[in-house]
């Protein structure tokens, strides 16, 4: 792999003009490396994405989609290409899940680490590996990769134009995989990387997926991942996405999900890290009677920002969608939630509910929450709501009246608010680890 730095003359971008933002984006784009020969078939997809990005600029807050999420901090950070880090087993040991001892794929700074991965225990016909190897076994991969709607979104396109490998999980028809598949993306240095994952759950199959972003150093790196998930008819995917990036890092990620008829997608997202993190979560129901459950938790403190932009697009009758997005915001931090639910005329007899719950723990904390229900079908049940609150005095008092100090009472209540999301995670070791993290964060 040739690695070269072409980003030398972008200079100091203190003031961000459109020109600066275009130059910066071009700089990011220029860091992409060659496609490995195995993935030569991707060239066309990659080139198309390249041309989508080339003439554009890093979005400013004047754009509606980015109104609350100011990327000018990113423009201050310069990235270079450098050789991937060599890390060993001991460094990632604390992130491993005992449930996934033999169903784990590890990527270090976006590069597949076969020595740290282990996929020995999966049933015949199931593929879990990296794209470069997977494409040999599954040429059908090209029927799924980078084919979701929304691929023109700037950071999604930047990923598609730049990724050189990724994770692939392919579950054949009627296969039910018991061990959760753990996709672990580790950041070790101040670099830009574009993790990519493709998950295909064929008709009648079921799989549990844990997608996790962690770091070994508290640096200002930039992770720009894209995960695509395809559920065949009557397939079931339980997905947990955990973002535990460094508090100096930038994380702008995309999860795109397509659901064929009768499929069930249950997603729990937990975002704890990042100086600026944004998650685009987009679910497209393409068949009848599909079921979508999204539960999200974002915790931000200091002067960090955590943003979730979600879309649930129903399109057929009898679909259901349930979404709860929670944020806990302290200090001068800022949480953003923008949740679109689209129920077109064809999506009759559907049932959609969305709730945005936000807990502000300090007077300077801020949340911008915007549910966007676009309903043109007439025979649907839709409910939505948003709450922004401090902790209830009555709740604090109840705990105090049992001898618990006010401060500890507030922590306990904050913890409880968070744990309702964490408790949905079916993988016990991950649930326990996150419970511990949340306990520490609210302590």
């Amino acid at each position, binding site marked *: 792999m040739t690695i070269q730095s072409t980003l030398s003359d972008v200079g100091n971008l203190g003031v961000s003009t459109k020109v600066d933002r275009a130059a910066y984006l071009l700089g990011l784009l220029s860091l992409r490396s060659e496609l490995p020969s195995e993935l030569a078939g991707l060239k066309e997809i990659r080139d198309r994405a390249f041309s989508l990005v080339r003439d554009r600029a890093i979005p400013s807050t004047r754009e509606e989609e980015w109104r609350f999420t100011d990327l000018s901090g990113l423009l201050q950070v310069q990235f270079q290409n450098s050789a991937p880090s060599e890390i060993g087993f001991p460094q990632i040991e604390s992130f491993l899940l005992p449930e996934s001892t033999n169903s784990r794929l590890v990527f270090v700074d976006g590069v597949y680490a076969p020595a740290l991965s282990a996929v020995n225990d999966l049933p015949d016909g199931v593929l879990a590996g990296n794209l470069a190897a997977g494409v040999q076994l599954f040429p059908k991969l090209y029927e799924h990769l980078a084919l979701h709607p929304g691929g023109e979104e700037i950071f999604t396109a930047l990923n598609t134009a730049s990724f050189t490998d990724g994770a692939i999980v392919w579950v054949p028809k009627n296969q039910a995989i018991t061990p959760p598949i753990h996709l672990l993306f580790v950041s070790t240095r101040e670099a830009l990387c574009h993790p990519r994952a493709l998950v295909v759950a064929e008709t009648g199959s079921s799989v549990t997926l844990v997608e996790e972003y962690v770091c070994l150093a508290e640096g200002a790196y930039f992770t720009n991942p894209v995960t695509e998930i395809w559920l065949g008819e009557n397939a079931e995917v339980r997905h947990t996405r955990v973002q535990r990036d460094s508090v100096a890092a930038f994380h702008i990620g995309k999860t795109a999900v397509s659901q064929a008829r009768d499929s069930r997608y249950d997603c729990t997202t937990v975002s704890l890290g990042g100086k600026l993190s944004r998650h685009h979560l987009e679910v497209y129901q393409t068949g009848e009677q599909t079921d979508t459950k999204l539960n999200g938790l974002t915790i931000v403190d200091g002067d960090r920002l955590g943003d979730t932009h979600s879309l649930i697009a129903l399109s057929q009758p009898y679909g259901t969608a349930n979404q709860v997005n929670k944020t806990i915001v302290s200090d001068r931090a800022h949480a953003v939630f923008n949740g679109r639910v689209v129920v077109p005329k064809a999506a009759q007899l559907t049932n959609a509910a969305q709730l945005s719950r936000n807990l502000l723990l300090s007077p300077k904390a801020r949340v911008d929450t915007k549910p966007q229900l676009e309903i043109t079908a007439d025979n649907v049940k839709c409910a939505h709501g948003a709450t922004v609150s401090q902790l209830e*005095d009555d709740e604090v*008092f109840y705990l*105090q009246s*049992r*001898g618990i100090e006010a401060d500890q009472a507030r922590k306990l*209540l904050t913890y409880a*608010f968070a744990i*309702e999301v964490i*408790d949905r995670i079916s993988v016990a070791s991950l649930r326990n680890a996150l419970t511990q993290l949340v306990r520490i964060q609210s302590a």
Partner: protein
Amino acid sequence: MSDVILSVKDLTAEVDGTPILKGFNLEIKAGEIHAIMGPNGSGKSTFSKILAGHPAYTVTGGEIVFQGQNLLELEPDERAKSGVFLAFQYPLEIPGVSNVDFLRVSYNAKRKHEGLDELDAFDFDEVVRSKVTLLKMDPSFLNRSVNEGFSGGEKKRNEILQMALLEPSLGILDEIDSGLDIDALKVVASSVNALKKPENATLIITHYQRLLNYITPDFVHVMANGRILKSGGKDLALELEAKGYDWVLDSQAVGA
């Protein structure tokens, strides 16, 4: 230490500028059971929450002395640790906090205050299970979130469970009998009686005499419009049951 547990003198209090307590007096000694009865809206719950230190109520005059110390100077949690316990009329639901964790944190806060070692989850489990059995509660309550989805009666029993763990010197039971069927009422009453000791005291707030068939009060006070209008022995409760509150209110109006 004097054997007076609680002494309330000329207490006045308001909420959002509206006076609720208008010169309230009460003295409770060790070993006594007092009952405050009175029509809805007379200020009974307000008084109980002021004892516990609820921030919504402002004390505008008078004093509350609890075991020789000025109760009004203490934070709600300090009051609890010093031995004031209020079983709420409407116990709160706290989703996400498991009942057993909540009970342990509370129990350990008190132990720490008393200079005792805190109990770990294992040892605490033993303590709490014995109380649960005593209260004829379903042990599965311990693993559910605090009061979440509990029936009215279950919530009340959970309050008594907390009291049984904390062993307060003053237990205040605000309408502990409302929403309880007769069997649950008997269980609750017998646990309250079992918790009774010569060195502590109990204040029962109710507007039904029924509970007082099972917990015999030493004193009964009738409260209306923010103050106590009449005090007497346990027979006063029977008289109220037979005649209603109006005669007390009327005789007060005549006397005033």
